[in-house]
């Protein structure tokens, strides 16, 4: 050490010493398990799906945030393209078809071949579907802002030529997935694939039913609308996401799912009950009374799949709860499960005639849709994304910003929904008492302000999520020690 020669330092023992050990500001969580590499072609496809989804999440919630601000400051702009009625569907459709659908499909492209223990049938089809769906959301956004929409039914505001590429994308994906499953090397079809493939079949079915013109005149439009908007939420988003959870949750806990049979029960019960509940959005309307009753009964029946699913997930945690504090994906799963239970049962509670008196037409519905689409779907999707991306790229997100993402999203959601539920319950009471309508508008002002605050936190969390995505895809600073070591050995041998 006292000589003049520069010491040999092949392992970086001298040159790579960290002089400033960072203070442990937050608890360090476990790193992702190193897994066998997957086909780089497929990895690229999945990254693109999730990357596009992230873009639409940030875009769609920026719009949502702006729309929320308009409740507090209605004169913030005077541009027709940015008016409330046009931007609201831009927000909902971008987060539905852009963010959630693409993220689900991205994760689906990982899960389906994995649990079939085979290769994806065709990555090319995956790319086509990705492009087609992006085309739909992009052109749909422009159309809505220009004032071109389908007639005002929620979530089918895109006109049919805009929605067509989306539908084709789903058909291609279905073909791709079914072919993959047909090539499986396992005997059984893992439950994830039941949920995922079924949801694509149902997604195509409802889109076709909603856009064909043969049953859309007069009240027919409303009946189909109720059916479509609710199946979109429950049979497309919920079913697909459950399929993702059935794969990633046991895998992250490193133990099998608690009960296969409960998963199967929940699957069939969901189809049986969920399909019938669309009309509960139009209770007391001029739609036939019997159909309203069927919808209410179906909504009550939803308790069965929800309780079965929740039990299954929670029992899978049994004996592995200690893993939660050590993991940065499991808190997302757990939050999703809590909202799956509470949010879904809230939906049942809202469907009855007596509760409709109180809550229908108020912002309670808005709070409910955020508790479910955000609390359940988004949290599950983030959980899956944080689980899968390090496997594709070998790169992990900075743990502190994952934590920031989690807490901002969760606290933001609670700030958003709880005041809104409280305020709109009282607003419903004011309506029932026959108070002047404008009094109920004035009354809501502080609750709308809370919504804007909560919405801002949620929006901020998405920026952190996008930042984490960047770290999991692009940053190349972190060196995979094993890989480098192997490379070094290979090189040495070659020398």
């Amino acid at each position, binding site marked *: 050490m006292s000589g003049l020669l520069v010491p040999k330092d092949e392992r970086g023992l001298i040159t790579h010493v960290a002089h400033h050990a960072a203070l442990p500001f937050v608890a360090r969580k476990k790193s992702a398990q190193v897994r066998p590499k997957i086909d780089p072609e497929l990895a690229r496809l999945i990254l693109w799906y999730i990357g596009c989804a992230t873009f639409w999440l940030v875009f769609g919630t920026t719009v949502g945030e702006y729309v929320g601000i308009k409740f507090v400051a*209605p004169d913030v702009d005077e541009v027709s393209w940015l*008016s409330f009625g046009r931007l609201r569907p831009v927000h909902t459709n971008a987060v539905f078809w852009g963010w959630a659908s693409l993220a689900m499909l991205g994760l689906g492209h990982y899960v389906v071949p994995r649990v079939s223990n085979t290769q994806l049938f065709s990555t090319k089809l995956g790319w086509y579907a990705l492009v087609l769906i992006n085309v739909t959301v992009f052109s749909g956004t422009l159309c809505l802002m220009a004032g071109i929409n389908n*007639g005002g039914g929620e979530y089918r505001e895109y006109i049919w030529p805009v929605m067509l590429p989306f539908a084709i994308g789903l058909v291609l994906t279905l073909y791709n997935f079914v072919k993959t499953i047909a090539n499986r090397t396992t005997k059984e079809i893992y439950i994830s694939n*039941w949920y995922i493939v079924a949801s694509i*079949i149902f997604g195509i079915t409802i889109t076709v039913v909603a856009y064909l013109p043969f049953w859309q005149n007069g009240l027919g439009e409303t009946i189909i609308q109720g059916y479509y908007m609710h199946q979109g939420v429950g049979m497309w988003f919920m079913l697909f996401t459950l399929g993702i959870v059935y794969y990633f949750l046991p895998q992250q806990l490193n133990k099998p799912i608690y009960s296969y049979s409960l998963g199967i029960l929940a699957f069939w019960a969901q189809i049986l009950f969920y399909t019938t509940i*669309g009309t509960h959005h139009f209770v007391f*309307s001029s739609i036939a009374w019997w159909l309203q009753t069927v919808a209410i009964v179906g909504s009550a029946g939803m308790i069965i799949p929800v309780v079965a699913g929740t039990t299954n997930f929670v029992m899978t945690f049994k004996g592995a709860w200690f893993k939660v504090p050590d993991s940065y994906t499991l808190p997302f799963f757990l939050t999703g499960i809590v909202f799956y239970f509470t949010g879904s049962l809230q939906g049942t509670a809202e469907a009855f005639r007596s509760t409709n008196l109180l809550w229908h037409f108020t912002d309670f519905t808005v709070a409910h849709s955020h508790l479910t689409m955000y609390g359940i779907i988004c949290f599950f999707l983030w959980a899956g994304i944080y689980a899968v991306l390090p496997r594709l790229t070998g790169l992990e997100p900075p743990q502190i910003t994952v934590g920031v993402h989690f807490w901002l999203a969760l606290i933001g959601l609670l700030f958003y929904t709880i005041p809104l539920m409280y305020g709109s319950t009282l607003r419903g009471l004011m309506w029932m008492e026959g108070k002047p309508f404008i009094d109920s508008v004035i009354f809501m002002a502080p609750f709308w302000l809370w919504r804007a605050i909560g919405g801002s936190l949620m929006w901020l969390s998405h920026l952190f999520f996008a930042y984490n995505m960047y770290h999991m895809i692009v940053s190349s600073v972190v060196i995979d020690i094993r890989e480098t070591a192997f490379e070094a050995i290979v090189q040495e041998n070659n020398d």
Partner: protein
Amino acid sequence: MDFFDNHTKLFGAAFLLFLVLTVFVALVPAINNEKNNAPLPGFQPLSDDAVKGKALFVANGCVACHTQQVRNVDMDKMWGQRPSVAPDYAANERTDLWRNTATLMGTERTGPDLTSIGTRQPSKEWNLVHLFNPRIVVKESIMPAYPWLFEVKKEPSQEDVIVTVPERYVKEGGILVAKKEALQLVAYLLSLKQTELPGGAPPNGMVSTFLYKKETKEGSEETSANPGPDGSALYATHCQACHQPTGEGLKGAFPALKGSEIVVNDNPELMLNIIINGYDAREEFGVMPAIGKNAELKPDEIAAIMNHERTSWGNNARKLSGQEVSKLMDAIKQLPNQ
């Protein structure tokens, strides 16, 4: 089980179950409704302008905040004279090749229901001002403003419809004029009225009464403690959008009630007649709808409104009793309708 291990059978079964349910809860009811439904005999089809106005209503996403359905529950009574029934929507057909039917029933009531807005607020002037910027007439409103449906002209021509708004909303020297889109949209809004049911009864099997009525407690203590209808709340519901909370109205659009000869007159007959039957005799002001008739106000409710107007904002006329109003109402009913 073998069945579950065969992907064709498994997914086929799931699809079949879903399809059968879809047919029964969506397709059959929808087609059935289409087949067995027709507009009521008294139904007025939309005028050409109103059709274009409806397209603007759809394009601007008004349905996000405004429903068009009076539910058959008591709390919806304020939005129409009867619950909506299927024939009310029967005339809605596919818009064009690109766009679906728009029944516009809505799912959210951030703003008022519009089923009978044409009856409730028939004043073109009010609707134009309100569209240009709702906060001119309703201070607390959070509805978006639609300034792009209007333009400012230096010298409007004879055909131009001039919209009177407070000066701060228009750049100096200009006069605000409604574009044809604004007029079309208003034409649509004014066309929104409930068609009367033939013979007053709904077609078979349809609920025509308002359910879940508020329970009126019969106890004697309750009635003696009950001060009667709240005049200021009724004023807020029925009158305030035009005459304003201050009773001062809006210059050039809606007359002031503060200090009004008609309001403070010792003989309330003319005032009562206007409230019940509406008024459109003075050109400089907007049309006053037949509030009393449309909302089916009871004598003591009308008395409460009148007393509120007669004793607020410095007005100081004698209060009327429900009985007196009731008697006068009977007399007014005998008069020929103007």
